[in-house]
């Protein structure tokens, strides 16, 4: 019967050729795409493991991968924990080397330009050894022991500072304090991820630790002899660490969603595209084969009748057509396989380069199509096509043809859905809009509210900020002097931070501490470091920096309030937006919801006005307490206490940048 099937294919050469071309083209596309996906997979894995220096296995504090970004101090590993992990890691098979790493965020300043950075603190010696084991065509620039590497995009944002020039890093320390360091720029590197390519910064581990004022690390990474051993090694190390300190550690591999985000997201995407493409190609191939079977059956009804008359069952006759389909598919598969390997080696010979998704540098294209995988793909495709051909052949040769179902046509379904959506939208009632006051009136309200918080006039006071955080509690005291929107904050307590100063003038903010050669300019984003933004410390002028919109009236803790939506009107504004609740009687701010750029509430502030100051001979209430709570983590908050508030008349020179260093 196989011979007969083969000869039947030969009998109708044109039809067979057309089918082979259609199926073969589909299989070729699948094989090449499959080879490309494996190439991308291998390349992305190398990027994650070697270039991004994640190594194969990572050890964090429990929940560290998810929580480190929000609370780095609480989820870091101290010196003792680092030692423990090192010892256990070295005792397991497949181990090559181990190292500590620190990650952090902050601002970088060079030549008066500011930009956000995402830093990785790495031991330069470990990175050099890791790169030596990598098969990456273009390993990144080596990290020196005392310098910084910045991505080219970040350097551009900083006005292209010269190599060797000092740049300033500014960030919140592990005790939620501002801190800054200076280090020379020694070169550039690529994060390999377009999304963060304009923020990438690489620093020696010890240097980054000094910025965050800690000897803790974010994680310990372990390089193995082969990535195939990562999962088993992780399990073994996790088991040993669990015995040592139950519930203390979390061990991940390089393809953990938090580690190999690039790998996981793109492989998920590619696998989905491959599945989609494979399905489409399979359906086209299957349909082609089914069409061919149907035509063959139609053309050979006499032959089928003769075979039935001889006593051949429907199944046996269908088997003949299935054999023909399988042979056609196998011929197509052989052609596709040969062409796939020709293309693969052709690409290798031409040294073609390609851009990997979100990888800045081009890499040499090298399709990865192991014969076993290619054969498995073909076997699966052939089996699927044989099954489809069987169904068609059985149906055409004498099975009952299913009557058309009473299905709902797609157009009717879509129309009904659209009508339902439209009806729902139309039936939603319009919100009743309260009569809105003019913008001038609202700005006047805001000015009065600012006055009660020291935004206008000349005052001095002592400010105590107590911050509660799962990592611990800190209290800092400042002396504040303000004059018509300018402010100077000097650290009083703790004593080790004395000498730190924050100057707010002309919508700009500057930070200086002993050891820095010049003040660090603090951008609006930097003012959001910690639960209490530096911008909240003093001189907040909502009337100047925001455009008010009237939302309506509401009650806050039983107080009738106007609800205003303030949108940042200047790049110098600390927040993108604020929902501000003003007491209708006193026009003082009762509550403020601080919004992210996407409009989400991320901090909530409440105000109390227990202080009194004299303005133009009249006693006015003045802010005495402000509590700022993290909207997502209510156990993280800052309590600001305003004491010793008094009118003052500080000189202009107090708020001059030139004199900041000498004061």
């Amino acid at each position, binding site marked *: *019967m196989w011979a*007969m099937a083969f*000869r*039947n294919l*030969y*009998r109708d050469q044109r039809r067979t050729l057309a089918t082979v071309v259609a199926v073969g083209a589909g299989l070729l596309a699948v094989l090449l795409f499959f080879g490309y996906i494996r190439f991308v997979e291998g390349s992305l894995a190398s990027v994650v493991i070697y270039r991004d220096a994640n190594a194969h296995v990572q050890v964090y504090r429990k929940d560290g991968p998810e929580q480190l970004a929000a609370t780095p101090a609480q989820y870091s590993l101290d010196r003792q924990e680092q030692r423990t992990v090192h010892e256990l890691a070295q005792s397991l098979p497949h181990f090559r080397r181990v190292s500590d790493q620190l990650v952090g965020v902050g601002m970088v300043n060079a030549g008066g330009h500011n930009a956000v950075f995402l830093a990785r603190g790495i031991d330069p010696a470990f990175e050099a050894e890791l790169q030596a084991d990598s098969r990456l065509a273009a390993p990144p620039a080596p990290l020196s022991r005392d310098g910084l590497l910045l991505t080219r995009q970040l350097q551009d944002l900083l006005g292209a500072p010269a190599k060797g020039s000092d740049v300033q890093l500014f960030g919140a320390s592990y005790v939620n304090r501002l801190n800054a360091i200076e280090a020379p720029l020694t070169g550039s590197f690529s994060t390999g991820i377009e999304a963060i390519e304009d923020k990438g910064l690489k620093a020696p581990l010890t240097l980054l630790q000094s910025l965050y004022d800690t000897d803790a690390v974010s994680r310990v990474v372990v390089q193995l002899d082969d990535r195939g051993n990562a999962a088993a090694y992780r399990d073994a190390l996790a088991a040993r660490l669990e015995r040592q300190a139950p519930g203390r550690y979390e061990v991940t591999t390089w393809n953990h969603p938090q580690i190999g985000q690039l790998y996981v997201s793109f492989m998920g995407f590619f696998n989905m595209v491959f599945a989609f493409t494979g399905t489409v190609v399979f359906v086209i191939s299957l349909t082609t084969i089914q069409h061919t079977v149907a035509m063959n059956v139609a053309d050979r009804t*006499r*032959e089928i*009748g*003769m*075979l*039935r*008359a*001889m*006593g*051949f*069952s*429907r199944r*046996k006759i269908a088997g003949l057509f299935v054999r023909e389909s399988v042979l056609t598919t196998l011929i197509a598969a052989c052609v596709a396989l040969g062409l796939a390997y020709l293309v693969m080696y052709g690409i290798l010979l031409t040294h073609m380069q390609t851009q990997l998704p979100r990888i800045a540098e081009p890499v040499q294209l090298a399709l990865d199509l192991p014969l076993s995988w290619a054969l498995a793909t073909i076997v699966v495709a052939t089996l699927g096509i044989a099954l489809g051909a069987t169904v068609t052949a059985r149906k055409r040769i004498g099975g009952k043809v299913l009557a058309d179902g009473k299905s709902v046509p797609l157009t009717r379904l879509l129309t009904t859905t659209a009508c339902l959506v439209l009806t729902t939208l139309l039936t939603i009632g319009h919100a009743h809009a309260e009569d809105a006051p003019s913008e001038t009136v609202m700005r006047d309200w805001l000015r009065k509210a600012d006055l009660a918080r020291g935004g206008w006039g000349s005052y001095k006071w002592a400010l105590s900020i107590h911050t509660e955080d799962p990592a611990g509690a800190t209290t800092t005291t400042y002396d504040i002097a303000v004059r018509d929107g300018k402010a100077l904050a000097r650290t009083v307590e703790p004593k080790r931070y004395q000498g730190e100063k924050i100057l707010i003038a002309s919508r700009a903010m500057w930070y200086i501490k002993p050891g820095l050669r010049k003040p660090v300019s603090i951008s609006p984003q930097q003012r959001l470091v910690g639960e209490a933004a530096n911008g909240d410390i003093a001189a907040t002028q909502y009337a100047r920096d925001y455009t008010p919109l009237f939302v309506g009236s509401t009650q806050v803790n039983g107080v009738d309030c106007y609800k205003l939506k303030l949108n940042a009107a200047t790049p110098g504004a600390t927040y993108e937006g604020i929902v501000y609740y003003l007491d209708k009687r006193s026009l003082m701010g009762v509550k403020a919801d601080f919004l992210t750029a996407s409009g989400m509430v991320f901090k909530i502030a409440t105000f109390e006005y227990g202080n009194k100051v004299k303005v133009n001979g009249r006693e006015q209430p003045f802010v005495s307490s402000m509590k700022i709570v993290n909207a997502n983590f209510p156990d993280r908050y800052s309590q600001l206490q305003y004491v010793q508030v008094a009118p003052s008349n500080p000189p202009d020179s107090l708020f001059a940048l030139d004199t900041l260093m000498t004061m």
Partner: protein
Amino acid sequence: MNLVEFASVTKRYQLGDVEVVALNGVDFQIQPGDFVAITGPSGSGKTTMLNLIGCLDAPSAGELRVMGKTIEALGEQALDQLRSRTFGMIFQNFNLIPVLTAEENVALPLHLHNLSRQDMRQRATEALRAVDLERFATFRPDQLSGGQRQRVAIARALVTRPQLILADEPTASLDTANALSLVELMKRLNSEQGVTFVFSTHDDRLLRHVSRIVELRDGKLTVTHEQTKRTEHGSPSSQTNRYEVM
């Protein structure tokens, strides 16, 4: 035992909204060794009758027994087996598989008989020898004449050693010489090997040689001729037993 027995068999077809009665209450038997011709004008029900005998179709009413078995009671698998073991089929257009050689075409029905490749080949050769085509074993149908193709078809019908060979207009596509040769061959097989032949035909050349003629008209069996002997050249005998069935 009758090989085939029709008992008030009726067969209706639905053609759109119209019901066509192809056979209408037919009573008829075929005994082993018969050499029977079914004749009648086009649309009289000849092919329907052959299809029913060959178990390719089932009666709408009445009872049809083949080898003593009521075919309505048999499942598809049993019917397939009955066809492969009991019948050989010859078609007007030969219906040879064009991609197979004469020998392979002849051996085709043997695929249902669990024989070794060698046995199949031997049986096919014997069948081809019986129709004097042994030397054409490796020829494809398009390399054979019409008469040779029909002989291959007969060999294919014979190869399973069936008890009954059904032939639908077997001489319709043949010239006179080939038709007569074919008739002689079938008669020889009938007399020498005892193979029962039932065929539909309009061909007088064939009718002269049959032992029984069954005439159908509008689905009814109108006449049978029992020819007790035949002339030397195949002309019908003067002694006939003619009677009206309906």
